[in-house]
């Protein structure tokens, strides 16, 4: 299933593409409309490739500083967390922001679960 989110435009490869398109637009080699089309192609491609080719597993552990859920988009702000990759590689991260859109196969836990209400925004001081 394809879910062409625009989420991954903020990744390294997405920013690299956007900057490249920006340079081409500045030199009048492509139009902004074509650049938009290219970004849409990128949205689809990155989702497909991630689904098909990336099978690695990872684990996050850390202290949750702030969480937020709005329009099925979760935002987590972690402090002093550790990303443990499948091969045993551990990556300590001081501050980490996680932006997560809803997966098409995600279970709907809005009913009967102890999940925070929508638009919950909590800051822990």
């Amino acid at each position: 299933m394809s879910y062409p989110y625009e989420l991954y435009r903020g990744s390294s490869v997405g920013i690299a593409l956007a900057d490249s398109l920006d340079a081409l637009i500045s030199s009048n080699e492509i139009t902004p409309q074509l650049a938009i089309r290219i970004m849409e192609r990128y949205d689809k491609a990155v989702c497909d490739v991630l689904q098909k080719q990336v099978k690695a597993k990872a684990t996050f552990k850390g202290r949750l500083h702030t969480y937020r859920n709005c329009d099925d988009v979760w935002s987590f702000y972690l402090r002093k967390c550790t990303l443990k990759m499948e091969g045993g590689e551990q990556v300590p991260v001081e501050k980490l922001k996680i932006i997560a859109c809803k997966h098409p196969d995600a279970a709907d836990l809005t009913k009967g679960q102890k999940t925070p209400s929508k638009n919950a925004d909590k800051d822990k001081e």
Partner: protein
Amino acid sequence: MSNSDGRLIHTGLAFQTRPQPTVYRSIIDEVIGSLKPDFDEFGVGEDVLLTLQQKWESRVHASRAADFSDSQASASSNPHAAQYNGIGSVAASGGVSRTGSPNIHRTNSPTIPNSRGASRTNSVGNVTNAYTRTSSSSFSNPPVKAEPIDRSLPAVGNPPSVGGMSRTNHASYNPSLQGLPSISLPPLSNMGAVPPLSSYPQNMNALNAYGANRGVPGYGVPPGGMTDNRNVLMLNRGAAPYGAGAAGSSASQVKMPQVDGTWDEEEGDEEGSVSLRKRQWLVQRYPWMAEARLANVDTSQHATFDIIPQVDGPSSSTPPVPPLNTLPPLNLPPVSSGTGIVRAGGPPPLTLPPLNLPSMNTPPMGNKILHPSLLIKPPPEEDVKPSLGGGSNSSFARNPNVPAQPSEDINSDLDDTDDDEGPQEQPGSDPDADVTYCTYDKVTRVKTRWKVVFRDGMVHANGKDYLFGRCTGEFDW
């Protein structure tokens, strides 16, 4: 392995287990491969497509988020990567192997992008030169200045496990893919030197023909139309906000709406506020996104909008308007209705009533529709009185000979920004914070214990990218 700071020291094994280069290569290939119809539709040549691919790859390399040094080996084992080995290896492996530069990916020297850009430029130029040059020059005297050798790399003569080092021990580069023309490279006399790429025109010509036959984008391009305006930009990761773009979506594709939530670096609980801030950033960074969006808007939708006059005076950008009683009388026929609201096609006659109307109640609106409230509701008394600096700053009552003063009627105490409390730290406002983009399967909480299941994630942490297909998280709030 960890150092004294507890940070992980990447070992060779750790690098080999990271799949970013292959995945990024696949993303680039898939996007570039799918763009041919779009470029044809927009009437853009394939040389621009090749330029885009080169710029994209250069920037991905320059970001150093992924280590492409081991992608050469994976490219040979990956059928997809091998399919585009001819052109795809320009970034993943070919750029290294063609130039022979041993320190393209691993060094922190600022010459990396330049050396890479130069080599890529030369490789592109090779394609062009392949049509003009008839004989290849010898490699006996490399004219290119030798690059500094990265001290962090193994010695030159070490076994070639990294990048283009393999070319040291091989006189020719023979990709494993059958049918791909071999690239015969002259032997390197100095690993620190970049060989003259003018010695490869036949190879590039053969590659070009091969790629054109297989339909690989970017091959078979006429030499005259090829441009390479690369300028490798070193992206400062901290300077680039990690926001998913909201602009750029069109109605042509069915998408799951991503209305909000990916832009949380600023305060904005309201949906419109977040979206607005996101668009503002995108417009600021990529103005073409806004231009394209505006161009797609049907302008006829705006044709029916009535223009509501600004009743509280002109903005600071407009010149001050003198009161009508200071204007010379207009020689216009009297209007029977006296309302001043007459507009129906044709050249707009000036139907402002002559000066028999209450002068202060009628702002000059030109040929725009006058709002009835202007004729009914008189302005406050203090606004009517012309002031000479010390009184009201209302633009209606301002003497035209007095320069416009910044009005404090609006920017008053009501607009206090509560700066007394000092700047508040917003979540995610730290540009140096690392970021993860992913999708979630499950998010549960028991008291302050959170358990999440993520999928399809791209993590950028400590300057490196990590990818995962599935991730579980346990957080304590």
